[in-house]
């Protein structure tokens, strides 16, 4: 496989063709929640609604668990998963608070203080990752 020059960025998924292919049905499910009638149907019976989308068992379990990071690890993209979050009343900033593990309040404080610095956050090696 071709080396990807963006794979050494820590804490980041670049939504490329491989991820798009893996996450296709998951993402199509998420975007369906853009519309109120679909949100109503999903909220009335999650299991029946999810049956319409041939995603993997792991993806389906991550949806049910609202495991926001696992959804990304399994091919979800943030602009899609944010539709599921919005359905649950979670906006982009609070979703980021959950994904970073910081919690909503600490994350908001970090942003008010200027956000996460680039220093120490450019390469996986700086995070002690391969």
């Amino acid at each position: 496989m071709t080396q990807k020059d963006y794979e050494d960025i820590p804490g980041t998924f670049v939504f490329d063709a491989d991820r798009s292919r893996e996450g296709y049905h998951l993402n199509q499910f998420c975007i369906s929640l853009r519309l109120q009638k679909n949100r109503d149907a999903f909220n009335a019976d999650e299991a029946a609604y999810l049956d319409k989308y041939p995603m993997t068992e792991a993806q389906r379990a991550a949806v049910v668990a609202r495991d926001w990071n696992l959804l990304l690890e399994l091919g979800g993209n943030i602009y899609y998963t944010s539709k599921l979050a919005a359905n649950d009343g979670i906006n982009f900033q609070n979703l980021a608070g959950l994904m970073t593990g910081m919690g909503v309040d600490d994350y908001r404080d970090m942003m008010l203080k200027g956000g996460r610095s680039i220093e120490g956050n450019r390469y996986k090696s700086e995070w002690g990752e391969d």
Partner: protein
Amino acid sequence: MARITAGVGCSHVPAIGVAMDTGITEQPYWQPVFKGFEFSRKWIAEKKPDVIFLVYNDHCTAFDASCIPTFALGAAATFTPADEGWGPRPVPIVRNHQKLASHIAQSLILDEFDMTIMNEMEVDHGLTVPLSVMFGEIPADGEWPCLVIPLAVNVVQYPAPTGNRCYQLGKAVRRAVESFPEDLNVMIFGTGGMSHQLQYKRAGLINPEFDKMFLDKLTQDPVGLSQMPHVDYLREAGSEGVEMVMWHVMRGALDDEVTEVHRHYHVPASNTAVGHIILENKDI
């Protein structure tokens, strides 16, 4: 003849739209964001564009994963603000200059930019937030002060078009506009950015040094800036910071030498560094 007189670079953070729609722009959190647009609103009211060519990206709203056009030009008569998952924004329907839009589409394709043509399209915050910050609050039953030609650029699925391709497209947009016989004052908006990452464990990344470099070079060294590879945006400005390639379309449509008449930069708006710049052509 139609002419491009000025370019506007502008973030399109959805929370900025929510702040305007819910009337909380005077709160301490938001006040500094909007203060930077006070000049811009006076400026655009004086300059009175007839048409804005607005470069933005759709955030999985009008386009789902089944179809991902790199460049999609809006040719419909009107564009309705979309429900993005929390209800449509209460802002006016966006009206096109359909004749100019189809002229630009034809001209671009003959100029070897193979556009997707959208005869029906809803528009999301990527398009409506820049209009809102520049024109202020306008009720849903009102009218935007000018016509808008949307150009949706894929920046969701990697790779977005290169900075160079966007810059060259801007030049082709200018050629198209200048070959349209109607006397029109056209402005071009490049939107998105600045540094931000919305996803996963590095979410919240902000890089003011990168953003300042980008704004400086946008005015002074646009060709050099347009050569920056995607990985530099992704690493230095966050995974969603790659939206900034869209500013190159705006810059490419302007003169080589421009006058920077306004700049605004503020952190944060939600997860994002807000950047805004106004560039004027010198011979207008």
